[in-house]
């Protein structure tokens, strides 16, 4: 009887430890890209809800990720051939996000175990899906590294460790900056609570990034009525050329 009770407690304990869940809010759930769009800042804030007092052993950590729409990518490498640099090897990467930002309360290596990272695809290398690339080129991993390096330099991939504020192991907030060069699509926001490298709870939200107003109108037209759009571009060009020439003739006889 006592033994059974002990087993019950043993089973219940980890469950109790996981009785921490996230309550989250976003400062905005949609971003409109208009002509004067210069980027946007999303505030991710929230709290940890507990049914029991917080376990004392390991501190709670928070990871916030924001992921833009993903596309396949070809990475090419230049090599010197007869004195000039030309594209030689290429690797096709199945899917890589156009934007990816991670903000954390601590160093990623300390607060997230590798297995959990693989399972939840949190860090940049695990988010990029590059399956079966080793057959495409020698030393295929360097192509993935190059992709990350280039995108990090462009500000499309960002890692901000210690950028999440966590108060009293309960309240957290993080500012995620969305750059001006934003691709339209659904941006997935994920928040992970970790303890000792394990993910305790996770929650998903979506930010809808859409072109609006004139941007929307022109983009849609260029896709759906491309001939009309092309003619409009030409008409604009001819009109501008003629207009400038006329105006100049009038002001400078």
């Amino acid at each position, binding site marked *: 009887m006592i033994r059974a009770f002990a087993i019950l407690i043993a089973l219940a304990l980890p469950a109790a430890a996981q009785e921490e869940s996230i309550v989250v809010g976003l400062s905005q759930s949609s971003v409109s890209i208009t002509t004067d769009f210069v980027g946007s800042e999303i505030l991710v804030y929230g709290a940890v809800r507990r049914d029991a007092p917080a376990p004392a052993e390991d501190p709670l950590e928070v990871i916030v990720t924001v992921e833009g729409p993903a596309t396949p990518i070809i990475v090419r490498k230049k090599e010197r051939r007869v004195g000039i640099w030309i594209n030689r090897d290429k690797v096709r990467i199945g899917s890589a996000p156009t934007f990816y930002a991670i903000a954390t309360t601590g160093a990623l290596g300390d607060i997230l175990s590798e297995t959990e990272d693989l399972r939840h695809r949190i860090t940049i290398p695990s988010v990029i899906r590059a399956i079966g690339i080793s057959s495409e080129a020698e030393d295929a991993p360097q192509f993935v590294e190059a992709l990350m390096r280039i995108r990090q330099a462009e500000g499309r991939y960002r890692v901000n460790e210690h950028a999440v504020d966590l108060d009293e192991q309960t309240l957290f907030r993080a500012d995620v900056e969305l750059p001006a060069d934003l691709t339209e699509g659904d941006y997935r926001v994920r928040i992970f609570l970790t303890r000792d490298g394990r993910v305790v709870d996770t929650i998903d939200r979506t930010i809808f990034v859409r072109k609006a107003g004139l941007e929307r109108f022109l983009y849609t037209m260029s896709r759906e009525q491309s001939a009309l759009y092309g003619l409009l571009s030409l008409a604009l060009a001819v009109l501008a050329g003629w207009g*400038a020439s006329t105006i100049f003739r009038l002001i400078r006889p």
Partner: protein
Amino acid sequence: MQMYLPIAEVSINALLVLGLGGIVGFMSGMFGVGGGFLITPLLFFIGIPPAVAVATGANQVVASSVSGVLAQMKRKAVDFRMGMVLQAGGLIGSAIGIWVFARLAVLGQVDLFVQLSYVLFLGAIGAMMLQESIRALRRAKKPGAPIKRAHVHTWVHRLPFKMKFRASGLYISVLPPMMIGAGVGFLSAIMGVGGGFIMVPAMIYLLGMPTKVVVGTSLFQIIFVSAFTTLAHAMTSGTVDIMLALLLILGGVVGAQFGARIGVRLRAEQLRILLALLVIAVSVKVGTELVLTPKEPFSLQVMGAE
């Protein structure tokens, strides 16, 4: 003043683009080149995706050429008939060029081919023009030196289908201009340029057209080539960014007017030396990029979502 571009999906400084358009427009008005060979690399440089840069550059070239042609027409410096003949060849050439371009895109060697074309054609033509104009300038300084005969009869004059080009004062076969048109059309489809920098010297040296009608006629021809390119890009890849084009055009048309006015004041030889130097400069710039070890040997090509 930042501005988000709907097709390029990047945010750029509007004043910077206006300025770029103005500079390129100035050159095109002065030299009678559409300016595509300048605008496309400049757009790459400020971070516009290459496909958008090529297509939008073509659209800007339409505007500056229209503006330039109107200025040249006032001076009766456009040979419309010659322009049409060049154009007929140009369409054939550009159709072939678009096909070759698609092949190269599959192989991932578009950049290389474009760069090599820039180096080879710009370099060769620039050097030829420079040499010839310096010689012409020297000759002009020494009066009494023998002047090259205006009409040297060669095999070109024995070809059939002769036509009178009154504005140019030529009576030649339509075959050479059509072939030149086709060659330029081919290159312009591949290099994403109007082809004026090739057309201008070809008209002077190969067809023997008088310099005063060359600029206007070249611009006239470029309008159609670049309009065709713009439309083709808009319909096949949707890469013409109308907002970017508008900024470039506003800067460009104004620049072209100033350029045309300055151009009139300069002597033809001086004009050609300047154009030759400009062409050589671009060629050298592109050439060094091919030879120097790149900072980043890797490049990304984003594929459409599947």
